[in-house]
């Protein structure tokens, strides 16, 4: 099963599928933007400002999801002693970081008309900011540590420590009294979002996931070619 994660196997898939993912992303994003900006209804309370949800929520979901995968792969690196996982984690990090920044900035823009302020040191917002710092430290560790083995260990450690923040982000709105609203989408019970808003939200989430996949594939290819460049130097 672990052979599936071998660099040559992933490279074979990633090098062939990039252009297809790119075109699919453009199609899904165009549909998503049309739905989010023009076709979906305005909210009876928040009016048109609710449209910010279509970029804010998928970005937050993706940032959380990607960091969870990075943390899982980092734990796997230590458990299975498989160093192939680090290439996947390293390639996922840039898109996760960008999604985190988008979630923070669009949340701030949404906060102004809704709460009357651009920023509040609220549990959800602050924990998302901490996640961005962990993403930053993870990416920085790869840039400043030259020894590959040390970089794998330190970046994995950052991801594992940062994973403690994931449940804090998820349950912050339940554990503390926050300005940020509670979850509207629930897995275990009925969702409180109407289908006319849920469908555009789903399409935009799919577009964001495709963008993340596109960046992952390109970044993975870059990393693989970089390794092979070093191999050519040693010949």
């Amino acid at each position: 099963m672990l052979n599936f994660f071998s660099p040559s196997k992933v490279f074979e898939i990633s090098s062939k599928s990039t252009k297809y993912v790119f075109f699919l992303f453009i199609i899904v994003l165009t549909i998503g933007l049309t739905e989010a900006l023009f076709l979906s209804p305005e909210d009876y309370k928040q009016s048109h400002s609710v449209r910010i949800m279509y970029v804010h929520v998928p970005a937050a979901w993706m940032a959380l999801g990607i960091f969870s995968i990075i943390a899982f792969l980092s734990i796997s690196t230590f458990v299975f002693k498989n160093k192939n996982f680090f290439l996947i984690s390293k390639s996922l990090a840039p898109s996760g970081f960008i999604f985190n920044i988008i979630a923070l900035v669009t949340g701030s823009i949404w906060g102004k008309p809704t709460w009357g302020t651009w920023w509040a040191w609220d549990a959800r917002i602050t924990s998302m900011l901490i996640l961005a710092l962990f993403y930053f430290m993870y990416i920085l560790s790869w840039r400043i540590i030259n020894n590959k083995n040390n970089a794998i260990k330190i970046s994995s450690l950052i991801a594992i420590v940062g994973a403690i923040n994931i449940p804090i982000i998820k349950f912050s709105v339940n554990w503390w009294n926050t300005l940020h609203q509670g979850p509207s989408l629930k897995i275990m019970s009925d969702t409180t979002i109407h289908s006319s808003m849920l469908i555009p939200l789903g399409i935009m989430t799919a577009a964001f996931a495709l963008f993340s996949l596109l960046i992952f594939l390109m970044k993975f290819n870059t990393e693989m070619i970089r390794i092979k460049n070093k191999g050519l130097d040693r010949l």
Partner: protein
Amino acid sequence: MIKEIILMNGYGPYVWSAFFFTLMSFTSLYLLTKLQLLKEQKRYINKFGSLSKAKIAIVREQKINKEILLNTIITKI
């Protein structure tokens, strides 16, 4: 109609700036990643071109190297 879409009951500047920021972030990350990929591909081709025939034969034995060479020539998106 167009004015209504742009202004969105006074929420237009918030909504449009949020979407604009998102799309700009996507474009920037895509271009940066693409640039890095092209730079590495160029370096690989330059190094590969300077190899002797014997070394080229060794490099070509590896599946990943074949894929890189194939994609460097074909991929220009």
